[in-house]
């Protein structure tokens, strides 16, 4: 072996390994590690791979249920039954730090990674979602320009990868807030479909079975990216640039097709993608899951670059690669399929019975580690959590009323609330002929033809609520996702989540994480939606501090019949418009307060599970009875924003004449408060009586607010009235992001 650097205390520290962890490594090995082994431990025991700071919290999630076929954590992604022998595998993954350093490639390789996680399960990926957070993009100045550059780059990167590979990106969410400046969040979601009997396992089964490496050649790109994701971003992060990987969606498309073709042959004993920590992670995890050992020879690994050391080869995060354990005697099947697809492949090793991960280089052993200990025995830390301190409620007297006539268009123009068409029109959201409800309604609806099922999917998280009250914010994130599904006519089945937080060594950050996890867990239990898996991204900080805690929720539901598919926009003139739920009050933590008054304050709205559930059941009941024409939940921006979106978000805008009567209170409070458990529905005039009867018998509070029609959106309230011509409102909302991005210099 060539001269490896010495194992000095500095080298150990540089690998992010604490003295305590180092002695544990010595205990496991019964000796000092060599340099390659040190590198291997450092990536496997990074937060990204080992969840050493979050595991005790993650155990709080409900992960079981009658429909759960593969549990979270067992494999790359959980698998949920959707009936008739069909199942879905879905998961969310973050690529925050790579995207901060190189937005286009960072986001692109994030998409590539999550897609591999899904087809590794034997599922054909059918659609993607994405959940994004950036610093503010309106205004001038260097940081705003940089935010725009990051935003444009991330969107282009997601588009590049998803469009090329031919998986539609059908939904997502985007918010802009100071706390993400310098540390954007890029969370990507992929869902795949499979038959129950097609579930593939990531275990190295069968001693003597050959181990194949397939896919792209290994290069020096992305060395130790997992460790990179497990650190705070600093000015020096630019020095981490070799950590940037370049994605090749074309390769991945071939890899996807070849792997699915191979998995259909019964020649595969186990399969595992090479994501974070590449060869290292895939070899030790498959061995650990199989209760076996794996021995590979690096000299056999297809390589793109000359003279790579074992250390570099083991830690490389080159994209578009997989490890496949093949049943002995079936090697020809692999050869035939990978040659057909013109993909590199090589037999690089064999499954052993000794529980060791043994890495050779031209026959000389360069690393030898007990696989299960490496994969599963990372230290677990119980971090200190600062107790939650409830924020002071907002004193409304300190909030000057902005005339709603002005406030509504201003909110619609705010990039967090404006139409996201500038983003999703860059995504191919129609390929695969399943996009029944395209982006732009509460949830996307996708027809999975092979299974004959309509799936609905959404991603949600109000991080402002989570900042002010992480537990309540997390509960609301789940409730809002379920509400979006209910409005679309769907019954939720399961959840994936992405926990984006700051450095867990700081007690206030860890306190937020704990509160949020408990809130998510409680809500997932209540809605009967097990967590199928997800991702933890800690150390999301910039020099200015931690991000607002952002536990993103991705939720999937099923719609029983095509006729139940419901969208948020008004469908014609003369329909009755109802509010389900209460007008409510309180501008605490509202987007009105944040966007127009610049204040992130107050006690977020409270969520009452029973009230929320009644709303969902009522909505689904009305939809299944064929009684309503549109349904839209009230979220950021409150009732006025929801109503405006009902008017302007469809292909053909429809006006509305709304009379809220004599509700007492300030107009801005009534129109923009974000009281939970509410939705706006529209009903054909001849169904109004039936709807009111149904609502009354369900015990659902409601308010008949007015009628659709005309070319204006009008609200009357306690003797005041505001009229907004639709064309102006629509233009404010529809073109807002495009104006910011196209008419200002984005570079």
């Amino acid at each position: 072996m060539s001269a490896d650097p010495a194992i000095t205390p500095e080298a150990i520290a540089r690998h992010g390994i604490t003295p305590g962890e180092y002695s544990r490594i010595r205990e496991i090995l019964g000796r000092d590690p060599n340099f390659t082994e040190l590198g291997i431990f450092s990536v496997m025991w990074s937060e990204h791979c080992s969840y050493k700071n979050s595991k005790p919290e993650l155990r709080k999630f409900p992960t079981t249920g009658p429909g759960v076929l593969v549990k979270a954590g067992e494999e790359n992604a959980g698998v949920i039954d959707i009936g008739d022998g069909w199942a879905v595998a879905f998961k969310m993954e973050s690529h925050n730090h790579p995207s901060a350093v190189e937005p286009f490639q960072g986001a692109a390789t994030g998409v590539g990674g999550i897609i591999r996680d899904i087809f590794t399960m034997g599922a054909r990926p059918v659609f993607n979602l994405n959940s994004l957070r950036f610093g503010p993009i309106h205004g001038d100045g260097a940081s705003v320009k940089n935010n725009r550059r990051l935003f444009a780059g991330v969107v282009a990167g997601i588009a590049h990868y998803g469009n090329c590979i031919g998986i539609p990106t059908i939904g997502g969410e985007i918010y802009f807030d100071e706390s993400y400046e310098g540390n954007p969040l890029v969370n990507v979601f992929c869902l795949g479909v499979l038959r129950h009997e097609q579930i593939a396992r990531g275990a190295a089964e069968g001693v003597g079975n050959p181990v194949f490496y397939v896919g792209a050649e290994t290069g020096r790109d992305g060395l130790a990216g997992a460790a990179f994701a497990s650190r705070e971003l600093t000015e020096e992060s630019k020095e981490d640039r070799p950590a940037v990987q370049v994605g090749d969606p074309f390769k991945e498309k071939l890899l996807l097709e070849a792997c699915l073709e191979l998995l259909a042959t019964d020649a595969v004993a186990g399969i595992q993608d090479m994501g974070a920590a590449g060869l290292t992670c895939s070899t030790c995890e498959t061995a650990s899951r199989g209760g076996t050992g794996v021995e590979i020879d690096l000299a056999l690994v297809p390589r793109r670059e000359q003279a790579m050391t074992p250390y570099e080869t083991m830690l490389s995060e080159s994209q578009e690669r997989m490890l496949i354990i093949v049943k002995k005697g079936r090697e020809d099947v692999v050869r035939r399929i990978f040659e057909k697809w013109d993909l590199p492949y090589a037999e690089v090793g064999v499954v052993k019975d000794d529980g060791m991960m043994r890495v050779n280089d031209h026959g000389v052993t360069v690393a030898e580690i007990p696989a299960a200990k490496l994969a599963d025995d990372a230290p677990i830390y119980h971090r200190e959590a600062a107790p939650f301190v409830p924020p002071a409620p907002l004193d409304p007297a300190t909030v000057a009323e902005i005339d709603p006539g002005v406030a509504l268009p201003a909110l619609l123009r705010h990039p967090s609330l404006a139409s996201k068409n500038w983003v999703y029109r860059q995504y191919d959201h129609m390929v695969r002929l399943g996009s029944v409800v395209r982006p732009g309604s509460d949830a996307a609806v996708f027809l999975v033809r092979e299974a004959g099922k309509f799936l609905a999917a959404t991603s949600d998280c109000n991080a402002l609520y989570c900042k002010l009250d992480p537990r309540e914010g997390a509960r609301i994130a789940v409730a809002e996702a379920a509400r979006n599904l209910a409005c679309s006519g769907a019954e939720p089945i399961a959840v994936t989540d992405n926990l984006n937080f700051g450095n867990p060594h700081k007690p206030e950050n860890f306190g937020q994480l704990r509160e949020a996890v408990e809130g998510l867990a409680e809500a997932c239990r209540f809605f009967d939606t097990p967590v199928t898996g997800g991702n933890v991204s800690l150390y999301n900080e910039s020099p200015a501090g931690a991000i607002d805690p952002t536990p993103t929720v991705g939720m999937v539901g099923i719609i029983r019949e095509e006729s139940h598919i419901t969208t948020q926009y008004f469908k014609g003139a003369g329909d009755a418009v109802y509010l389900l739920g209460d007008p409510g009050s309180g501008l605490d933590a509202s987007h009105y307060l944040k966007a127009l008054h610049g204040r992130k304050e107050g006690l977020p709205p409270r969520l009452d599970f029973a009230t929320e559930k009644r709303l969902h059941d009522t909505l689904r009941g009305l939809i299944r009875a064929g009684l309503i024409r549109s349904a839209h939940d009230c979220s950021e921006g409150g009732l006025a924003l929801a109503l405006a979106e009902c008017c302007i978000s469809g292909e053909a805008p429809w006006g509305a004449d709304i009379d809220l009567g004599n509700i007492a209170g300030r107009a801005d409070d009534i129109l923009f408060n974000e009281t939970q458990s509410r939705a706006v529905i529209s009903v054909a005039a001849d169904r109004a009586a039936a709807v009111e009867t149904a609502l009354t018998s369900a015990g659902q509070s409601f308010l008949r607010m007015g009628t659709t029609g005309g070319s204006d959106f009008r609200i009357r309230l306690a003797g005041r009235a505001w009229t907004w011509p639709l064309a102006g409102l629509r233009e404010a909302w529809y073109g807002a992001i495009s104006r910011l991005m196209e008419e200002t210099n984005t570079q």
Partner: protein
Amino acid sequence: MRAAVLRFPGSNCDQDCHLALDFLGADVHYVWHKEESLDGFDLIVVPGGFSYGDYLRCGAIARFSPVMRAVVRAANEGRLVLGICNGFQILCEARLLPGALVRNRSLHFLCQDVHLRVETAATPFTRACTPGQVLKIPIAHGEGCYFADDATLDEIEANDQVLVRYCAPDGSLTDGANPNGSRRSIAGVCNRERNVFGLMPHPERACEPVLGGTDGRFLLRSLLESLPNPGIHAA
């Protein structure tokens, strides 16, 4: 009547085309890019996607696949060839169609519905349409801006080779209705012999009510009606 849907490495609308043609009653088969023969097929569809990753130029590398020699032969024999999106790019690169497709003027990939005005019904690809008819069909491309020099444009217009143009919902040709900056709003052209047609929009994405529109059927039905033993569903 037999239709072939070609599959290149990186094709991703192959299944969609198969599905739409099958739905309309065609006998559809996939043909792998390494095949050298297309004997027995009356219609050859070159589907959308990112053949060879669209590296270098869209369609530039696919054009050299073995199956493309068979496509050229089929075209010369007068059989029907339809290129959609990336397929259109490939047919232009293979010189089966005039012109080329370059970056959208916005520099962004665009996925959205557009309106198309049918310029002529005198082709096997548009015979189920009426001239001037407006169709709503989605696009999804980053490099769909049609370019040809003035002389070529004049010539293809004189020969009635422009089959569809981007237009406003009322059929008027406006700059705002041109999504990508295509010269003279051209969305699709055929060859001089009128048996090879390429267009950027995706008719296969607009063949079912559940997907929000059925105008794509006008084009695909035209095709099937032009073939021997169409056997079309009364769709």
